[in-house]
Structures are given as structure tokens and as C-alpha cells.
């Protein structure tokens, strides 16, 4: 049976290449046909012409290759439909949960998060056996307001024991580590983590089951945002988690690096923002195996708010470094339109997939 699938894959591959050659690069990108049909899941993607057409990204189709820089094999993209998520959508997908007012007048905010084992195509043609929260990597971006009571019902639908460990201030039994409070949540079990939304800022959550490096590397992490009581200035807000995948499991660095999982995704689909509008990036480094990650923005400078726990920026810069678990808020206004690259200023990571573009319109 597996060989049948493989044959099918190859058949699709050949088909798409022929079509690509026949229709010519630019025309093909415009109609989105070969991109949708690149992988076996292309059948599903072809049913969504709008998605497929936007995937081309038009202008960026020709980036990379030879001296023009790193690229995956030309004309190939990840099958987002089979993955169940498109990283472009994850950027602005803030999960506010369900709110209700308690007798005290305080807001109660609730989520349900389900752990599931799932294969994710992290680069065109490369499938990674991930462990996920809510079937996506990174998991849902949980967003609350300072002072609220939060309840996260965690259901373990995975074949492995897991926990949810939040960065934030909470009681020991809500820390989501083995041996404390409920400890490991076994497959099929569930638990409700409950704590106050504090302090305001940008945080994260991840599984803390052992071996810890593997549970994180497999994709069990997400962003957790606590907005200050008074709120922040209106902005076009984006969530980015810098991550990577050790696809050969040799525990010696990663083969694929990215923001929000799919490598080189924002080369194919640039992050579209408006000129002059405030852009706020909630940036977290969760990269496993490599000690330091970084973020560099071309031709523009941003205000940096470490951990987002103060309302005054500490620095105006274009490059910041982060260890695993470190995070901060970036605020930038692009004064002019155009394509502006952003990538890890560890160029090895950049050339292995952690590279993208802002398209300022």
C-alpha cells in the first residue's frame, strides 16, 4: 500500500512539472495550477482555487536559485490543505477563547486544547511526524487580558503522555510539569489548568513531558499573550514563533528552520502589511537543539519590548537574538512600499528555510 501512494506522488510530480513547463513560470504562478497540483494532496487544494492562486505570491516566484540565494526545488510548495493550516493564516489567528462573567464581576476565559499526533509537511515533500496542540504547529495563540481568570481544558488525544506548561505566574500545581499537581496527562485523559492572566506581556506554553527536548522539538508549543489592562495601540498584529525540525532525528541540529513551521513560506507568500500602519510582531523563539536564534529585518528598524512586560521599548534596532523560550514584541512602521526581507541573522538558519519577505503595499 505505501508503494502505491509513492507511485501516485511521483505521477503527480511529473504531471505538475510538465504543466509547469508547458505553461511557463509566470503564467503558471498566476493561475496557480502547478502549485496546487504539486503534491498528492493537490486534489484537495485544487478545489480551492482562491487559496492556490494566492499561494503563488506573484512577484516572489523567482526568488532564489544559484547565486540568487537558497530555495527549495523550484515550483514546489507545501500542501497546506493536507497540513490543515496555512502559516499565513496563523500570523493573525488569535484565539480569544470563550468568555463569561463570574459573580464577582471578573471575566472567566476558557479554552479547550487537544493534543494530537499528526504528520506535517514542513518543507515541500518532507513530512515530519509531529505532536501537536489542536492539530497545528505552533499550537493556538491563546490571548487574554491582564487580571482575567483563565481555564484551559487540556485533552490528550495523542498516543503519548503530555502536559501544558505555561510561562506566567501561577500556583505550583498548575505548572504542568511531571510529578507536581496532576503531573503527566495520560493518553485519553484531560485536565483543566486554571490560573490568573499575569503578568501582562508575551509568553508561551509548551509540553513539559520527558524527554523534554523531543516533546518540544516535535511541535508541542504555542504563544500565550496577556494584554495589559489598558490595552495597546491599535496595530496590525502578527504572531511568529521561530522553530525548526530535526527531520532525521539525529539530535544534532535541525534540517529545516522557519517561522511558524513551514520553511521559506513567506518567500512564497510574503507577509502583506500596509505602508505607515503600525505593525506589531509577537516574536518567540522555541527552536530546539540550537542554542540561539535571531530575527533581522531589512531596511527598517523596530522598537523592541523584551517579553512585552513593559510599555516602553528598550531598543530601536533591526536585529535581536533570543535563546529558547525568550520572546519580545516588535513594533515597526514601514515608511515605504516594497519587498523587505526578514530572516535569522544566523545565515545557516536563514538558508535552511528561516527566511521571508514583508510585502508593504
Amino acid at each position, binding site marked *: 500500500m505505501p508503494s502505491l501512494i509513492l507511485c501516485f506522488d*511521483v505521477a503527480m510530480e511529473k504531471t505538475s512539472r510538465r504543466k509547469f513547463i508547458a505553461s511557463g513560470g509566470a503564467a503558471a504562478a498566476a493561475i496557480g495550477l502547478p502549485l496546487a497540483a504539486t503534491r498528492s494532496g493537490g486534489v484537495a487544494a485544487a478545489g480551492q482555487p482562491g487559496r492556490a492562486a494566492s499561494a503563488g505570491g506573484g512577484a516572489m516566484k523567482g526568488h532564489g536559485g*544559484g547565486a540568487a540565494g*537558497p530555495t527549495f526545488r523550484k515550483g514546489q510548495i507545501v500542501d497546506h490543505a493536507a497540513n490543515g493550516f496555512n502559516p499565513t493564516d496563523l500570523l493573525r489567528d488569535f484565539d480569544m477563547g470563550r468568555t463569561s462573567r463570574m459573580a464577582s464581576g471578573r471575566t472567566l476565559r476558557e479554552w479547550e486544547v487537544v493534543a494530537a499526533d499528526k504528520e506535517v509537511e514542513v518543507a515541500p515533500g*518532507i513530512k515530519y511526524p509531529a505532536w501537536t496542540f489542536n492539530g497545528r504547529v505552533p499550537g493556538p495563540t491563546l490571548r487574554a487580558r491582564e487580571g482575567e481568570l483563565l481555564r484551559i481544558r487540556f485533552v490528550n488525544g495523542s498516543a503519548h503522555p503530555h502536559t501544558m506548561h505555561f510561562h506566567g505566574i501561577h500556583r505550583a500545581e498548575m505548572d504542568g510539569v511531571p510529578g507536581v499537581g496532576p503531573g503527566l496527562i495520560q493518553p485519553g485523559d484531560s485536565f483543566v489548568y486554571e490560573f490568573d492572566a499575569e503578568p501582562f506581556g508575551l509568553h508561551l506554553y509548551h509540553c513539559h513531558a520527558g524527554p523534554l527536548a523531543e516533546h518540544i522539538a516535535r511541535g508541542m508549543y504555542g504563544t500565550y499573550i496577556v494584554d495589559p489592562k489598558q490595552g495597546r495601540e491599535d496595530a496590525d498584529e502578527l504572531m511568529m514563533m521561530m522553530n525548526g525540525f530535526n*527531520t*532525521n532525528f539525529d539530535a544534532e541540529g535541525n*534540517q529545516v528552520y522557519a517561522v511558524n513551521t513551514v520553511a521559506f513560506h513567506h518567500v512564497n507568500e510574503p507577509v502583506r502589511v500596509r505602508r505607515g500602519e503600525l505593525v506589531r510582531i509577537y516574536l518567540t523563539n522555541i527552536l530546539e537543539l540550537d542554542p540561539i536564534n535571531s530575527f533581522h529585518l531589512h531596511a527598517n528598524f523596530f522598537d523592541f519590548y523584551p517579553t512585552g512586560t513593559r510599555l516602553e521599548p528598550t531598543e530601536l534596532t533591526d536585529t535581536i537574538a533570543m535563546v529558547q523560550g525568550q520572546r519580545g514584541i516588535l513594533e515597526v512602521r514601514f515608511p515605504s512600499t516594497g519587498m523587505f526581507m526578514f530572516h535569522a541573522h544566523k545565515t545557516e538558519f536563514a538558508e535552511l528555510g528561516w527566511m521571508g519577505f514583508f510585502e508593504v503595499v
Partner: protein
Amino acid sequence: MDGLLRGRLIEATTQPQPQVEPPTPGRLPAWALGAIPLALIAVALVALLTVGGDTLGERVGPPVEEIAVERTVLRPGEIELSVRNTGPDPVTVSQAFVNDAYADYSTTGNQVGRGGTETFTLDYPWQADSPYLVTLVSETGATTEHEIPVAVETPTASGGFYGLMALLGVYVGIIPVVLGMLFLPLLRQVREHWIRFFMAVTIGLLAFLGVDAYLEGTEIAESGTGAFGGAELLFIGAGAAYLGLVALDRFLRARRDRASAAGTSAFQLSLLVAIGIGLHNLGEGLAIGSAYAIGELALGAFLVFGFALQNTSEGLAIVAPLSAQRRPSLLRLASLGMIAGVPAILGAFIGASVNNPELAALLIGIGIGAIVQVIVQLVPTIRDGAGRALYPTSVAGIFVGAALLYSTGLLINA
């Protein structure tokens, strides 16, 4: 049961046993007796292939993804890899990166079938004289690394290239061998125990060449993909060459006996030595050619000088059996020199254009087998009056021969 057996036994012993069973009518001819089991074996194999595999169930564990790069061709801005699947399952290559940077590539098909090959041409601006590590990533995320120790543009098989290889072959093969043969007049003057000494020197030379070739051949064989085997190719080549030369020797000896032409045996021995050395020089040319192809050959005075010095002793070995002869004709001498030297040119061609470790191992193995056979041939020529092969003079000769090659070999490495 007991009675039955006994009855049969009695029957068998009492009845006269025919020595040869008479041919019964309807008995099958011999070819059919061979064809029937062959056909049954074929049917059984097909059955096992189609049905038998299923009876064992699915393999436990993930698919085995084993691919290896067989050949690397470097062109400006391009790295072309010929990849062979050396494992039991088909492998789908999904992406490739060079020195930790993903690169675009073209190929006719991503999937490399079991035992099959596929070519991947990477679009990468490599720089001359730099090392590169190419990594192929399969659909499961497994990686296969291929090291390019030093990037040098792969020579294309043009006229100039063949000319250069021919020149190299002449330098390391023909010229030194012919130079060594110039010792013949000297050998004809010296006394018999000196001849035996020179023959012992030749044995020492050849023994050292054989050991050296074996060590190098093992290294080359291990650098291959293993799809067609490794070090055993050396032994296959050596066995084939040894037995082939023994057969040739017997054939020539039988002809000589029929012709009863006394005195040709010395020339025949020379011929066998020349053939053996020629097969060895094929392997030597191969090593030079492939080193040139990957830019590892330090072309220069030392290479030519070192090989010339070393292979001069090979010429000595060829003419040594002729010392007690009537003056051999120049044509015969020249042809001996060509037999020993020309294969170096052929080897250089093959090495530089094919550059396949398995083929190199096989050819080097052939050279080793030839050397062993020649040593066996030469042993009678060093026997002294008492029929001993090892005595102070011969031992000294063997040692001198080995030392000569060892020291001249140092020059080549330098």
C-alpha cells in the same frame, strides 16, 4: 513394518543387482533431466516472489532509505550527483542542500527505485578549491550526506583531455619500463648468481607492488556505494587474473612442447611478467586518472620522476629472464615494453572518465592477481644449485627490491 523392511532387505540382497540399469523405454533425455528442475525452480521462485513475501507480513519498522552518490560532476554553477539506491526500499528525494543552504535542482524523477539510479543537478554557485557537503533529504526527513573534498571542475572528455591522459600514461608507463629494459646488456654480462639476485629483486619489487595495490584497492573499494560490493571485488579481480594467467601459461607451455623449440621458455616468462606488470599498470593508470579527475593529482616533476624511477625497476623485471638468452629481437623487446606500459594509458582514460570505485577495485584486483601469478612464475628462477629459493643472496635481493619501491614511492607522495 519390521517384517516389511526385512522382506525388502532380503529381496534387495537376494536379487542380482545390475551394475548399470538398462535404459528403459520412455526414459527422458539428459537435457530434459536438467530442464525440468530448472523450470520447477523458476516456478517456485516466481511463486515466492509474488505470494511468498505476503506470508511473512509487513516489515517491522520504517522503510529503509539507503542511497549513495556514485558519481559527482562539477560544472560551473552546477553540481550533478548520480545517486544509487543501495537499500531494499524505493527512496523519494524531496529536497537538497549544500553546506547548509537549500538549493534548486532538476531531475527526471524524485524517486530512486530499488537498485536504480537517478541524477540530481543542483543549481549551486560552488567555488573552486573549496570543500562541500551535499545533503539529500528524503520525504521522511532522512538525510544522506555526500562530501566533495575539494571542488574542481570535472574535465570533459575532449581531445586535449585524452591527449593529456595519454601523455601521463606514456610518462608513468611506457618510458620507465623501456628505460628499465636498457639493463638487459648488463644482465647478459653478469654471472649466474647475480642474475638470481636480480630476479629476487624483481620478486621483492612485485611483492611490494602487490601489497601496496591491495591496501589502496581496499581503501578505494570502501569509498564506493557498496551496491556492487566492496573489497570482495579485489579478490574477484585477483582470482580471475591469477587463474587466467595460469591458463595462459599452460597454453603457451603446451604449444612450446609441441614445437619443442628449446629456449623460448625464457621469452615466455618475460611475456608473462610483462602481461602481469601491464595489468598492474592498468590499475596504476586508473588511480592517476581518477586522482586527476577530482583534482587531487599534483601534476608535476615529482610525480613523473617518482613513477619513472619506480617503474624503471619494472622494466628490469621484464628483461631479467632474458639474460641467458640469445639476443632477442628489438621488435620483441619493444612489444614487451608496450604490453607492460600501454595499459597505463588505458587505465588513465578509464580512471579520469568513469571514476567509479567499484570498477577501480576490480581492475586493481586484476593487477594484484597478475602480480601474484608472476611471482609464482619467477620463484624457480632464483633457486640456487641446491634448489633453495631462500638463501642470503635471494633474501637480500627481495629486500632490496621492496626497499627500492618503498623509497621511490616516498618521492611520489612528496
